[in-house]
């Protein structure tokens, strides 16, 4: 499916403008949920902060083993007297108040290196998936009344400075339903994160991708669920949140136009990413039903042999008189005699 149709640009009031842009070639990149999931996994580890248990934790008592011969286990025991604590076991991972097994260290490998080519592949795949309405719906976005996917808006949106304008734009473009979904999904986080400044959880709404730096982020940032990104600095964690494909993306016209320059096309290399060529799919035509119905296949294949074997239904002669008569001709005579007797 390498055809690249024209995409209509809509203005901030959701009216189709005269300008149409040829679909950037990125949208025809192969859709690879496995790769995106893996890369997302790796990349999401890069913002982690080191955490560890104190190096002296559980080791700060001057406990010493009593040795053998005193009818107690050989674990180090707390010295001194006059308190419950004296003579208690200390220092082992099995002891109360002892250090843990394998104390956590800050030099754990927190971050992951990801090959640049793989990161780029993942992002192109995620962008391509955002252009498939089925995937956007399956991810959970409400797009029943959106005019077109991919949704491209005129650059007027980049000039928004007030959240009011942003909200009115989203409402008119029938994208507000997705934001309402975010409002309705706000709930307490399960678990201890509640007390660690992560009290609430909510779903994600649309992602707005703009082409030129402006105040657009300030207009949209206070709307729950909405994220804003610059085309030249796309973030896989936002384009495919959770490693799942199909985020609802709103492109501004200048962002959409830049995509061909950033990612290139099959015939022109990328201008901004050195040495980058759009990934190609393993199968040029993945549509199974089209393949089997295509001229080449139909002509090469013989007709299907449909042997209709209808099972023979055996009826019960005791219930179907015609069968009984076929089996036992005298049954007719018996029946007529019985009828006559009844009449009399």
């Amino acid at each position, binding site marked *: *499916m390498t055809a690249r*149709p024209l995409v209509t640009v809509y203005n901030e009031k959701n009216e189709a403008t005269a300008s149409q842009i040829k679909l950037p070639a990125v949208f025809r990149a192969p*859709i690879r*949920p496995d790769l995106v999931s893996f890369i997302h996994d790796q990349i999401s580890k890069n913002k982690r902060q080191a955490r560890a248990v104190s190096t002296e934790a559980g080791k700060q008592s001057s406990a010493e083993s009593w040795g053998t011969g005193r009818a107690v286990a050989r674990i180090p025991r707390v010295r001194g007297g006059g308190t419950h604590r004296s003579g208690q076991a200390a220092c082992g991972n099995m002891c109360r108040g002892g250090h843990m097994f394998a104390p956590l260290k800050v030099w754990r490998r927190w971050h992951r290196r990801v090959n640049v080519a793989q990161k780029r592949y993942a992002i192109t795949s995620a962008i391509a*998936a955002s*252009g*498939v*309405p*089925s*995937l956007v*719906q*399956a*991810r*959970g976005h409400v*797009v*029943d*009344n*959106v*005019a*077109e*996917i*991919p949704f491209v808006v005129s650059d007027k949106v980049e000039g928004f400075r007030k959240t009011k304008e942003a909200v009115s734009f989203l409402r008119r473009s*029938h994208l507000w339903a997705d934001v309402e979904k975010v409002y309705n999904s706000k709930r307490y986080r399960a678990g201890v994160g509640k007390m660690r400044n992560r009290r609430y959880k909510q779903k994600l709404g649309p992602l707005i991708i703009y082409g030129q730096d402006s105040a657009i982020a300030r207009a949209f940032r206070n709307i729950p669920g909405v994220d804003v990104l610059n085309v030249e600095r796309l973030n896989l964690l936002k384009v495919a949140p959770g490693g*799942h*494909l199909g985020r609802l993306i709103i492109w501004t016209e200048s962002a959409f136009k830049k995509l061909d320059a950033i990612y290139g096309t099959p015939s022109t290399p990328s201008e901004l990413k050195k040495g980058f060529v759009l990934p190609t799919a393993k199968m040029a035509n*993945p*549509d*199974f*039903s089209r393949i089997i119905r295509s001229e080449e296949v139909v002509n090469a294949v013989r007709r299907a042999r449909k042997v209709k074997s209808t099972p023979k239904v055996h009826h019960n002669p005791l219930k179907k008189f015609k069968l009984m008569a076929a089996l036992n001709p005298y049954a007719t005579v018996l029946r007529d005699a019985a009828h006559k007797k009844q009449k009399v």
Partner: protein
Amino acid sequence: MSSDIVWQTIRNNSAFLKTRRNVPKRFSTERFNLMAVNSQRYNGLVNKKGVHIQLSKDGKKVDVLTKIAKNEHLPQKSTRTVSILSKNGRRARNGVANLVKTYKKRDIMPAQRFISQLLRGTPKAKK
């Protein structure tokens, strides 16, 4: 978009997928899925053509929605709605069969089953 590719992405992972413990069958609640079963054949998102049946907003008619394959990327214009006015089960079933048989023969039976269940579930209007 090839239904096979989209299916491979969605089959295990979708907002509409419903799995429960001790329930061996997976259900799927998207529109255009008449059997509500999670399978490529009946999935409402993956296939170009699809039929959906729902009560109209005023509750007096039954709406039969069909997907317009050409408008897959224009969600606002991608469905066509025809209303069935009769709420009589037999008449509605025949009406649906007539609507669906020229569009997608495979969906005649599921559509008939769906509309029968839908009407059985709606309370009868008291005259």
